[in-house]
């Protein structure tokens, strides 16, 4: 493998039902940052059926170039035709870096493609940087240190540890990236990208599975990853009914209710609203942690919030170790009064 042949930062631009997923824009934002020190361009790989219309928005969010693989076999996500599409793009265009979202699609596509093109893949990254490997040269072997490597940082062991990983001898350097972690750029209206249409041919074989039925979950809740303010409840809230006081607070502050895993496990709230290692990563401007003890797996999903306000009756709850403002007290008394006080404060400011 001649590593020098591999150029450019590529992003798998995930779309579902011909709508670009937010992760695609997040990856483009990151790819732009990585491309600068490498002095290279950002390419989005768009895979689907009748998806060409989506190129405009990918350009606005930072793609310099878009490779479109459009084929009727690619209508709904299936591992084989998508893996064939992406692996063929990699073999044809030779990217230096290939980023994929760590979604339920990307975590299936990424490993399949990495095995097919025989390279390494680092899962669920939260930090991506360009740097040296090894980080510090080995004395006497300074010349062996490689520069301009993708350094991929990820949590492991349920968030207990973090590891930084490199892929020095294989290309592309592949990573799946946790949704909600990377920042989108402000879209540039009317931005244009070079568009390349590429079709490697799709001939169904034993690996093509048949989709018998597609059942979409009914979405009646706002996406907690987009919320600026989250009012998050834990086991301490006590019951599904008692979430009412959190909903009232959320309404007063213009936020959305989310929750911890214990709440989902108890059946009080749907999994869509779960924050944490096995739920969603969020980073709102304000995160209220109410009756949440702050297990590591929960903290891993919310510690990047700008301001964390915790209310808990247990003075030793670990949530106080990450909270900016911690209040020890009874949430049943504090939350309703806080709602009223914030409403009053807002009314005062509006006058």
């Amino acid at each position, binding site marked *: 493998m001649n590593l020098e042949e591999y150029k450019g930062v590529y992003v798998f631009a995930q779309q579902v039902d011909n709508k670009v997923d937010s992760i695609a824009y997040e990856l483009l934002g990151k790819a732009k940052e990585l491309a600068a020190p490498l002095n290279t361009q950002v390419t989005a790989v768009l895979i689907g059926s009748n998806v060409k219309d989506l190129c405009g928005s990918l350009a606005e969010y930072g793609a310099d170039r878009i490779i479109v693989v459009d084929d009727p076999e690619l209508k709904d996500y299936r591992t084989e035709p998508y893996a064939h599409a992406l692996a063929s793009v990699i073999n044809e265009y030779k990217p230096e870096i290939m980023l994929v979202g760590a979604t339920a699609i990307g975590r299936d596509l990424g*490993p399949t493609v990495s*095995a097919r093109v025989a390279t*390494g893949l*680092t*899962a*669920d990254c939260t930090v991506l940087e360009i740097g040296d490997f090894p*980080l510090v040269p080995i004395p006497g072997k300074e010349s062996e240190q490689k520069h301009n490597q993708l350094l991929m940082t990820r949590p492991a062991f349920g968030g207990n540890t973090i590891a930084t990983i490199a892929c020095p001898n294989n290309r592309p350097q592949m990573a799946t990236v946790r949704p909600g972690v990377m920042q989108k750029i402000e879209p540039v209206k009317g931005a244009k990208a070079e568009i390349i249409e590429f079709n490697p041919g799709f001939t169904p074989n034993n690996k093509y599975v048949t989709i018998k039925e597609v*059942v979409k979950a009914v979405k009646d809740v706002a996406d907690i990853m987009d919320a600026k303010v989250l009012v998050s409840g834990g086991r301490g809230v006590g019951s599904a009914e008692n979430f009412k006081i959190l909903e009232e607070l959320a309404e007063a502050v213009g936020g959305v209710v989310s929750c911890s895993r214990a709440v989902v496990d108890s059946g009080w709230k749907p999994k869509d609203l779960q924050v944490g290692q096995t739920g969603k990563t969020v980073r709102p401007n304000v995160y209220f942690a109410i009756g949440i003890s702050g297990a590591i797996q929960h903290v891993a999903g919310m510690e990047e919030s700008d301001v964390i306000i915790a209310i808990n009756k247990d003075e030793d709850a670990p949530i106080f170790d990450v909270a900016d403002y911690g209040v020890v007290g009874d949430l049943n008394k504090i939350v309703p009064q806080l709602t009223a006080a914030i409403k009053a404060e807002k009314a005062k400011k509006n006058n």
Partner: protein
Amino acid sequence: MKVVVCIKQGPDTKGGVKFNPDGTLDRGAMLAIMNPDDKAGLEAALRLKDQYGAEVTVLTMGLPKAADVLREAIAMGADKGVLVTDRVLGGADTWATSTTIAGALRNLDYDLIITGRQAIDGDTAQVGPQIAEHLGLPVISYAQEIKVDGDKVTVRRQYDDRYHMVEAKMPCLITALSELNDPRYMTPGGIFDACKAEITTWGRADLKDVEDCNLGLAGSPTKIAKASDKVRKGAGEKVVPESPEEAVSYIVGKMNEKHLI
């Protein structure tokens, strides 16, 4: 029908995490349990045994003590256990691990291979799909439900906002979610069988169609640059107010200070 379930002895992450000086895991120093997603995969296989008389083989890769997890699986009802262990396989990343396991699976007959979606230590979810790729099999990840009919398997495949009912022709590989089922307990008879059961042990020489350059730490394309305990942002202020009113005025005060209202 023959089913092979790939299981892993994982560290119980509640017991703390230890590293070797080279940044790889010191698995010997941690408590070990059967990985939860793998256990659900095993239960799914045992249900196929109950229903269709499927023969269930469990396979693991690890240190010699990983044989414990195979005995636990046999005590739950699995028929045979295969342990893949060799010094040269240590420090493997997901590429080298999947290459190794695929090399072992090439020695076995199977209609269905089941793995857990992901392990609780690495959380990567990569090894299952990578094994399928090495063996040229269809893969269905994130299974919430598995039904077998003749030579076809139908799987409820979970996505972020939907599920697909997917049908594949066997042989194929499925990765199981822990919510697939509630795994059964070991039975007294099963524990008795497990103690007597002979575990097949394979080393490097037993792996089929695998090159040395794809094994172990040296054969892993990904390299650890740094591993450490997570450094968390320090705690902020904590107050113990006398009354709810005091608590509220503290919070509102801080929110005003930060222009959050």
